């Protein structure tokens, strides 16, 4: 395997393609190469591209540089205040040794169905910025994941930033990762919920789902039961049922598909209530 350190984004883009892969934190790619799960001709090291490591507020959006690490998310006041589900998912992400290396873009580019950052980013209408020698383009995260471990990024494209809408005082949100141990665990189900309220009416609803289909996705059918409504028990039940219906989970070593599907309903119900400050039977 050839190794090339890029000194700039342009240099990285010039080295892309022909079996090359970008490596930043390496937390997925390095063991994938070691164990032969991925064969790559050339690793293009982008880990020193400090210009891609930032978290900033601009034009009413939060821009997260591709190389911001998960630890950077935890250290960011902005993320903590204006993206609480993302902050919470970062807290549940692996352990500190991995968080110190793993980048936001890497978590998305790896395209695991259980990518921890995906549900909260989806719930905040994330858009990803992709660059290549041809130029730049932006893509909603909801259109980025195509299939199991397959993304809309072309091999020569580099993700440079993720842009999300900050949450404000009118927004209600909640996040939960169902896992088999309290750290260093692949999610059994991950759910992030964001509700934009106008008085008692839900103006916008966004529900990001992880580990319950081939890709992380927005539970649009569930959202439709909430958007434009005054949310009561009936709307919540309908949304929970739709979330469970819409899931396409598989059986694996962590849980059965049936359990995951059931948990989609339980967690969506619970997180909606939690977000809205409604009482619920069992605390998350």
């Amino acid at each position, binding site marked *: 395997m050839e190794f090339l350190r890029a000194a700039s984004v342009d240099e990285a883009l010039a080295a892309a393609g022909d079996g090359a892969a970008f490596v930043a934190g390496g937390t997925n790619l390095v063991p994938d190469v070691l164990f032969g799960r991925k064969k790559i001709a050339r690793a293009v090291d982008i880990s020193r591209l400090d210009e891609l490591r930032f978290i900033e507020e601009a034009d009413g959006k939060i821009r997260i540089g591709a190389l911001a690490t998960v630890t950077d998310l935890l250290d960011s006041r902005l993320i903590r205040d204006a993206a609480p589900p993302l902050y919470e998912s970062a807290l549940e992400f692996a*352990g500190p040794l991995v968080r110190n290396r793993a980048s936001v873009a890497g978590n998305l580019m790896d395209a695991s169905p259980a990518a921890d950052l995906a549900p909260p980013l989806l719930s905040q209408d994330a858009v990803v910025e992709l660059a290549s020698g041809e130029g730049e383009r932006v893509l909603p995260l909801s259109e980025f994941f195509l299939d199991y471990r397959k993304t809309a990024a072309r091999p020569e494209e580099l993700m440079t930033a993720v842009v999300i809408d900050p949450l404000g005082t009118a927004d209600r949100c909640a996040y939960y990762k*169902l896992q*088999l*141990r*309290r*750290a*260093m*665990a*692949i999610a*059994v189900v991950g759910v992030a919920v964001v509700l934009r309220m106008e008085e008692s009416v839900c103006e916008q609803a966004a529900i990001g789902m992880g580990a319950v289909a081939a890709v992380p996705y927005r539970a649009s059918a569930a959202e439709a039961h909430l958007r434009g409504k005054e949310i009561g028990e009936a709307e919540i039940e309908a949304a929970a049922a739709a979330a469970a219906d819409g899931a396409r989970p598989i059986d*694996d*070593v962590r*849980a*059965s598909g049936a*359990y995951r599907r*059931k*948990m989609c309903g*339980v*967690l969506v119900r*619970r997180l909606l209530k939690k977000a809205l400050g409604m009482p619920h*039977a*069992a605390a998350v």
Partner: protein
Amino acid sequence: MSERVVGRPHPIIDAAEKVSGATIFIDDLELPGALTGVALRSPHPHARVLNVDTSAAERLPGVAVVLSKNNTPDAPFGINHKDEAAFCREKVRYVGDEVAAVAAADEATAREALSLIRVEYEVLPTVADPFAALEPGAPLVHDSVAGNIANEFHIKRGAIDEAFEKADATFADEFHTHLAHQAYIEPTGCAAQWHPDGKISVWGCLQSVFLIRTFMLAPVMGMSADDFRVTQTKPGGAFGGKLDVKAALMAAMLSRAAEKPVKFMMSLEEDLIAMRPRMPVHISLESAWKNDGALAGKRVRIVAENGAYSSLSPAIMSSIALRTDNLYKTPAAEIQGRLVYTNIIPSGQMRGFGNVQATYAWESHLDNVADGLGLDPADLRLKNYTEKGDVSLHGWKIASCAVADATRYVVREMDWKAKRARGGKGRGIGLASCIHVSGNKGFSVELGPDDTDPSSGVVRVDEEGGVEIWSGESDLGQGATSVMAYIASEVMGIPVDRFKVPPTDTGYMPFGMGAFASRITLIGGNAVKLAAEDARRNLLDAAAEAMEIPADELEIVEGEVRAKALPERKMAVGEVVRRVGSVVEGEGKWLAGGDVLDKEKYGNPSTTYSFSTHGAEVEVDMETGVVTVLGVCCGHDPGRVINRLGAEGQVEGGVVQGMSYAMMEGLAPLEGHLRGKNFHDYLIATSMDAPPIEHDFFESMDPYGPYGAKGLAEVAINPITAAICNAVYHATGGARIRTLPVTPERVLEAIEEARI
């Protein structure tokens, strides 16, 4: 108790080298010129091996030797049944079975050579489920073993039928345990060096350097045990898993064939799929009771999963079958066990040796009984516990016992009565107890030299006043050798920091069976204590001559020999040795008490027995099934604590390891293939999972133990699984976990089942 050293908290004696990263583990051992050894493992659970073509691999530059059935003798080995070969011969029987091995100049070459070996398989139907294996007409794992039954027994003891006929109440339950790995962090490995005189040196992370020679290396390689010098490297955890280490055989065979040193390190994946994990077992229980809560009798039927080869599994099954009967006054019992071959990784011994599984089943059952009889689960146990002086139904002689004190402590500390009165709302508490051996005579016959279960020690004082202890018993990181140093320090009056205990080495150390069956503190500790007493006598005799004061008027204090009446008349221990002109030594040996069980499994297998009670408080999310262990409280009877810090470490480590087994672990076989092949699919408890643990010791001062001590390693793990399951049962108002592990999904199923 006026001991200076014993009973106090001490760091383990090699802690400084460990915290600074100076310890040399097997993978760190440098052997100049060593080749890298790797194994080709079966990708199939069950297949006939039609042909193994190693010619292309042999031709690869850098390859020194390729071994397979083609060029190794047919020398089956095994502790109970000689059912395993170094390399698969007519068949492969599990995914991971060794088909061939390569020694090459480096790892990349060795792995490339593996890819060049052509094996022609005829894939056979897999029999992965033990009940399917028992069906008539099931595929045979070993063609010569009809019905796939590796071992079976049926014992009736006491008036069992009458017990059930006259019972006020009877209860029945079934429990199933899973395939779980020791999951030490250090992957297993061994190194070997062939010498031109035909002898072989072996190094490795081994629990018993002596026994690996006699049950594996010598018989398979057609050499005598003495031809091997086996030296332990400090194991990075073992927990039973590094007793039966085929890597030693691989390294030794490759080294002999290549006539060069060979290092054979397993990857973590190989370790997880091809070592000897904890045996899965299916236990049916029936018990008969009087209304007042007196146990009248029990029936147990066991189907135990042997996997592809037997190893120590018959003994493990026997332990599962009989162990819990000795914790309670059991008037009668009927026990049936069947050990079944399957096309799964061979199961084996892990901390608890079957007792974790047995205790989970029986102690879960007891809480169901308590519920049925309307009694408090703690009271039910307290009514039936064995006591000092008892001879159990199976012939176990209880020399010391403080289990009731341990239980009363847990009840008191956990505010048991008040918390039991609540429950059913997602929060609950439960407890469980266990009994365990301190050494087991059966192993001495199966693995050792004869029926003596011996240990021996040598204590050597050098001219600088330093002391080295040689014991054939090994430290696995649990602090066993520190216990020896503290015992000898106590006896000899020499400060602990002057003691060294090197890793075990058959080259110069006296015989010891090794670290298993919680035997070291009792058996090894007694041998070292006797050796230290001998060395002390020899020191005093030499000092008497040098100081011209009778030995009985001398004592050793802080490393100095002093006249009792005239403390200013003194001589440093090192000086005494210099005057003698050589090293001053002491020797000791100790043979375990107890008997080898008779054919009906009757007898007293251990010198004495240890006890514990664990309590757990849990919170259960009734909608997701997620269980959080809020706290653990436990009491242990280790006879006497030698090193308080080490003893606490055993308890805390055992509890978390047991909790981890109970809640998240599993190799998760699916049609013969294991799914837990790395540490993100095979989960063990992280720091985030560790619950607060409160505990105390209840010292029964065993009459046979050194300073009254007996084993602690395994009583520290046995009961926690049942304690957690009983707490879940209490928290949920009746969700009984009958299949391990206690995953959220399973808890939710049990909650739903309890609602019906």
